[in-house]
């Protein structure tokens, strides 16, 4: 029995590796095709189709996108700023809200949870939230309109609360006996114990802010405050319109290669965030898995 099991194991593992290899190839290959297409010549791309290595190397698409580099760089700046401030602020506020909810000695636990749950089930809708942001807080055309609406997301609060609840009460109790105040308890004991959940939710928030164009669509008219994704989305949409209703004064614009180049630009920096979060991320996957 023992022998048979041992001899089987490598075969199973090879199978597993092959499967994983295929899956990762399926994930990586499209990405490479996109990058390759973005570096191709538009006409060559139409003639020969997509390939892993550009058949005719050309930087036309990037040249087109960087025609007005100031706007693109500004938008990168806006997105970095919003993502940075947003993620940190969002983590802080979310965890400070989730932590008390996990404490059994907190009296308003139930009602506050209900209140948060309520926003998950019923939302105010588009027009009322627009009115709140633009009329009540007067955030239109400010950077805050890109940050504040996503500051607290109910789902993340519950995810964090569940994690905090797995921290044994005894730790909190013993810390209290040692004479630690609430703030010190939170920042020096709870936070270091919660890096997996903070990293997971941090990644979610980062992606959330990085990928967002919707808030900009609603609240931003000032071209100086346009975030990257919104800019790229508009560039794509505008190319479509220009190419379909061309008149004599506009020149023709490469469309397929530019589409790929915008995708490359959009995912560029955020890919590195994954590497940074990766070590926490694997642990984070099990967050909330124990207690539902």
């Amino acid at each position, binding site marked *: 029995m023992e022998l048979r099991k041992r001899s089987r194991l490598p075969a199973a593992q090879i199978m597993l590796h092959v499967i994983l290899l295929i899956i990762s190839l399926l994930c990586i290959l499209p990405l490479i095709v996109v990058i390759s297409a973005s570096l191709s010549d538009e006409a060559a*791309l139409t003639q020969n189709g997509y390939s892993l290595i550009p058949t005719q190397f050309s930087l036309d698409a990037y040249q087109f996108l960087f025609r007005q580099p100031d706007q693109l760089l500004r938008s990168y700046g806006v997105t970095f700023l919003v993502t940075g401030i947003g993620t940190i602020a969002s983590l802080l506020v979310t965890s400070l809200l989730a932590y008390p909810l996990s404490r059994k000695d907190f009296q308003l636990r*139930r009602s506050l949870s209900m209140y948060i749950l309520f926003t998950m089930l019923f939302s105010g809708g588009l027009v009322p939230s627009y009115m709140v942001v633009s009329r009540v807080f007067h955030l239109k055309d400010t950077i805050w309109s890109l940050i504040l609406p996503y500051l607290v997301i109910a789902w993340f609060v519950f995810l964090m609360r569940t994690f905090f609840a797995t921290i044994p009460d005894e730790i909190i109790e013993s810390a209290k006996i040692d004479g630690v105040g609430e703030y010190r308890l939170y920042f020096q004991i709870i936070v270091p114990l919660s890096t997996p959940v903070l990293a997971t939710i941090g990644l979610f928030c980062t992606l959330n802010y990085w990928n967002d164009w919707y808030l900009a669509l*609603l609240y931003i008219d000032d071209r100086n405050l346009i975030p990257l994704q919104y800019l790229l989305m508009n560039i794509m949409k505008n190319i479509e319109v*220009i190419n379909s209703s061309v008149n004599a*004064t506009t*020149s023709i614009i490469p469309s397929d290669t530019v589409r790929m180049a915008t995708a490359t630009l959009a995912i560029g920096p955020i890919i590195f965030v994954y590497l940074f979060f990766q070590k926490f991320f694997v642990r984070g996957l099990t967050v909330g898995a124990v207690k539902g």
Partner: protein
Amino acid sequence: MRKRKPMFLLLSALLMMTMVTAACTKKEEAKPSASESSSPQKSAGASEQASEPSALEPVELTYYFPGTPQRDLALVEAEMNKILKEKINATIKLNLLDWGSFEQKMNVMSGAGDSFDLMFTAPWINNYYQNVAKGALLPLDDLLDQYAPKTKAAVPQSVWDSTKINGKIYGSINWQIVAMPYGVSIRKDLADKYKLDLSQMTKYEQLEPFFEQIVQNDKGVTPMSFQNNYDNFTVQAPYFGMDTIGEDASPGWYYLNKPEVKVVNQYATPEFKQFIDLMYQWNQKGYIRKDASSITDTTSDFKAGKYAANVGFPVKPGAEGELKTRYGFEFVTKAFSQPLITTGRAIATMTGISKTSKNPERAMMFIELINSDKDLYNLLCHGIEGKHYVFTNKDKGVIGLPEGVKPEEVGYTPGTDWMFGNQFNGFYASEADVGNWDKTIELNNQAVSSSLLGFNFNPDPVKTELTQTASVTKQYLSALTTGTVDPNKVLPTFLDKLKAAGADKIAAEKQKQIDEWISSKK
């Protein structure tokens, strides 16, 4: 558990309160705008004063329209304001929103009751019907008569009538081509090579020998292009002697040459059968790409010279020039259908005044100016002379790029003159276009009006059926019109499924609304 109940009560009470207050504030907001809409009558004296701008209070108007970002928008705005200040003592704030965000942004803004004056509206973007239904647009009848006589006079009454909803005009027409004949555009080099004589042709069938020659002799060229979001049957209903009602591809068209408007399912007509039979033959012979029904954009293939002809092509004056710039090849065109004015085409581009406008009279004066003042109109369309364009032939009004400037370096080329006002006041983009405006006006005048011009189909009663038939149509139609599948096998299935999805009910509803509309006209 006991604790939870009062919480629920509290929350629901809170919710109700917010609802009530929201309703209240809405009412309060509605009041001033209602009084504004009646103010034209009050300020009737203002029209006499219009010639004396100093008598008018200075106001700022805001104008929202879609487009691509223009670097020098502010400069153009300043120039326009010089004219506007002098003529109507107003300034304009041009708010150009990107194509991709215009629709949603306008939706939210009018939903939230933001204050602004003018907006671009059409059935295809920033939906005109929905805007009227929401009460976002101001009725313009009195304002047009009082402040915009020239604009009103330039457009035929029948076209004004087609904007009417419940008897009122809510959008000012940007006058341009309203009658479009459909036909074919063919690459000139290939047409010349095979000595194709288009002038004698009246039907697509006659192109067959020409297509055969291409398949035989020109490797890599597909005779006929097809784009699956532009289906060759639906776009050119008049070619088949019919016209659409409501959503073009929805079941229920009517025959143009019959005295009574009788709604029929167009997919069950002999014309449709004949057309898809032809397409099937052509596909078998290789005139159409085998994968045609999955192609969404043919632009780059046209540029690469992979197609010879475009069937179901809108043949308007100046189309050849546009094709040349778009694809880099010379084209010849021939219309196969008669030009027809339909409601959708007549109101394809309009300028509306927002219900929240604080100065609807002045907004209407702006509409009058942009439609009648050539300087103002061309400023908005083409920018500033010398900076964004130069005259290549001033007498004929032909403009070109300033010397040494590349097209992409120009700071202001919105390229959407059809969006702003009377297009026939515009400059020509090239020498070859000279006279096209007159030709277009002639085309408009000669065109037959659809007997349903002015009728607007209300899809609400058959919404479910429309969605269901739309998904059936989506599944089968492009396969049939590209000839990918054998009509004899697939058409019966398609018709059965359409029937099951409620095609008959839609046709009946269309018929009912049309009958009501006709009897209300009498």
